[in-house]
């Protein structure tokens, strides 16, 4: 029904566009007056007036209709003699009534349910009809209003500008509110988690084994259980594993990325640059899950094999394999960002250096890189925050055991891996185990936020210096 309505509104608006355009043209010719705006703006004006009020009304209606119908139906069911003690049971009865109406209910239907279902059908009908009537009423009213405005040769151009500005504002508002929503949902769940687990036990505990808290209602936890849970959520092994893998990744990505960035910016001819830059950037386009199975199926076993030949014990899921592949994944970020930064170092600095007799590599090492350093640091920090947030590769290649180790050949785990492990499968949403995922998410979010902030500051500082 809603789709049909939206379709009708669209058709009507489009035809009004042409109507408004030609109408104002005729007015201007017939009465020989100068229009306050181009004819097409009168067209836009009609379109906006015809569609926006109706669509906004439709949206608001659709948001509130189910809520209102539900409360009415539950009340009628209660009047019919239905018995429910709390909200959940009321909801269950409501769902049953709805299912009966749709013909998908296969249980026993008693008279109360049948009566309520009939009432439901009646209300749905009533609401739909009144919706259609109201919408057409609104369209007619707003179109009449706007046609009258047009006839008076109003400043349609300015009005259209105002409405468009409003639309853009609403769009950005939605983007911001969504972000806030995500942050708050993380925050509230985390607060629930920290009401059970002491924040210091979480931040400084060295043991991570959330499965101990499996299916345990947070509200009905006993003192003994509480003691047991106390040391199940230690954050240290996760942050250690995360930093360790990110560190290995940076060991791979920073030198290779930086050197390739320098080569691209300083040495490569235009032809080489044109071919090789996209190739490096293709690396950035490979989905991380592909890197993940490359790491898990090829690199991991290869390291184990090599390790065996050398007489070392290498776990087939190792921090080394995950870090290495993650490093390869990050190379293009470091490379293309540092390439950009080096390119924006003014040529005059290089000239100055050549003019005193410095060679190319001396110039790069002593003048170009120091000048580009803040930007390079920024790009590295952005890469670090990506490495910390990366999930798929570590899920597949680094293992799940929360080992507190600095041996790169053993398996280890990261924050993101644990979030995945906690949230896959059936979950009890009151269990501290599930809530710990939100606490982890919040911690990760704060960590990457700080890194990004520092990186942005560094890059900005650099820009100010040379712009």
């Amino acid at each position: 029904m809603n789709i049909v309505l939206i379709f009708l509104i669209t058709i009507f608006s489009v035809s009004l566009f042409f109507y408004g355009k030609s109408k104002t043209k005729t007015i201007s010719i017939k009465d020989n007056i100068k229009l306050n705006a181009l004819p097409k703006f009168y067209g836009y004006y009609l379109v906006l007036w015809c569609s926006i009020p109706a669509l906004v009304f439709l949206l608001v209606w659709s948001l509130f209709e189910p809520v209102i119908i539900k409360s009415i139906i539950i009340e009628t069911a209660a009047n019919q003699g239905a018995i429910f003690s709390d909200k959940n049971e009321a909801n269950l009865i409501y769902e049953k009534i709805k299912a009966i109406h749709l013909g998908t209910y296969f249980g026993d239907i008693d008279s109360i349910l049948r009566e309520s279902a009939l009432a439901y059908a009646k209300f749905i009908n009533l609401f739909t009809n009144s919706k259609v009537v109201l919408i057409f009423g609104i369209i007619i009213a707003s179109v009449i209003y706007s046609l009258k405005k047009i006839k008076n040769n109003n400043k349609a151009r300015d009005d259209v500008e105002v409405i468009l500005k409003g639309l853009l504002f609403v769009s950005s508002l939605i983007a911001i509110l969504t972000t806030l929503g995500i942050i708050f949902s993380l925050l509230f769940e985390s607060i629930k988690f920290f009401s059970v687990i002491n924040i210091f036990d979480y931040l400084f505990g060295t043991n991570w084994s959330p499965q101990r808290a499996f299916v345990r209602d947070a509200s009905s936890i006993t003192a003994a259980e509480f003691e047991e849970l106390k040391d199940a959520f230690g954050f240290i092994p996760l942050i250690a594993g995360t930093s360790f893998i990110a560190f290995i990744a940076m060991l791979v990505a920073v030198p290779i990325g930086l050197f390739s960035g320098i080569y691209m910016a300083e040495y490569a001819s235009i032809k080489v640059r044109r071919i090789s830059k996209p190739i490096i950037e293709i690396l950035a386009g490979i989905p991380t899950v592909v890197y993940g199975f490359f790491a898990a199926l090829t690199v991991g076993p290869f390291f184990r094999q090599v390790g065996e030949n050398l007489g070392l014990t290498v776990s087939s899921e190792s921090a080394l394999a995950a870090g290495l592949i993650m490093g390869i994944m990050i190379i293009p970020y470091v490379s293309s960002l540092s390439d950009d930064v080096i390119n924006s170092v003014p040529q005059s600095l290089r000239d100055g250096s050549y003019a005193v007799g410095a060679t190319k590599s001396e110039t790069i090492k002593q003048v170009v890189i120091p000048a580009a350093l803040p930007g390079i640091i920024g790009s590295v920090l952005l890469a670090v925050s990506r490495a910390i947030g990366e999930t798929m590769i570590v899920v597949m290649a680094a293992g799940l055991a929360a080992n507190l180790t600095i041996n790169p050949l053993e398996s280890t785990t990261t924050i993101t891996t644990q979030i995945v492990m906690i949230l896959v499968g059936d979950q009890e949403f009151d269990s501290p185990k599930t809530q710990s995922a939100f606490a982890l998410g919040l911690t990760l979010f704060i960590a990457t936020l700080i890194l990004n902030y520092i990186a942005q500051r560094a890059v900005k500082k650099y820009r100010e210096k040379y712009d």
Partner: protein
Amino acid sequence: MSNIKIKSKNLNVYYGDKQALFDVNLDLNEKEVTALIGPSGCGKSTFIRCINRMNDVIDICKVTGNIEMDGMNINDKDLDVVSLRERVGMVFQKPNPFPKSIYDNISYGPKIHGKGETKSELDQIVENSLKKSALWEEVKDRLDEPGTSLSGGQQQRLCIARAISVNPEVILMDEPCSALDPIATAKIEELIDELKKTYTIVIVTHSMAQAVRVSQKTGFFHLGKLIEVGKTEKIFKNPDNKMTQDYITGRFG
């Protein structure tokens, strides 16, 4: 008549397909200031960039013909560009101090050429260069501040100090005052007068008044050709060529 320091014979420069200099024959006298004037894009800068081979930096640039310094062919492929640039310093249009301290800006060149092995030797070089460029009194107490913190005129004198820190024989100046205010310009001109006692100087300038003030010899370039060259006085009072006459009286350019 002083000695000829640099001598160009039939010098041609091409940027890709476009020829920028046509058969330029120009002699530069030792310990004298030679000014090169002419409208924008006439090849003045291209010419001085041939003297320290700065055109090598540009991939598509090709130089033919002869350019000699003390009888040594600058355009020789086997020539060591590093030692050439040690002998021929350059100052650019816009002050371009490195993002380093004032001290490091000047010690950069000597370090590259292995001069000033001990700290005190290096200190001495820095002090001398800054004194020669008349900047020492203004910066001696803040040598560790960044070079970019100086004013425009000071930055340009810092760049001159950087150029003379490796003790060159020739200094090329590519419109050194075009980004500076009149007071800073006056200081640089004063400095050029002083420097010409020790160095051979070539200055590209758009200001005819500046050419008159600082130079002993002037060359007028137009569309890649050297139209006329001679004593500055003569060029500005009584040029042989009609085009030179028109340019210096402001009829074109």
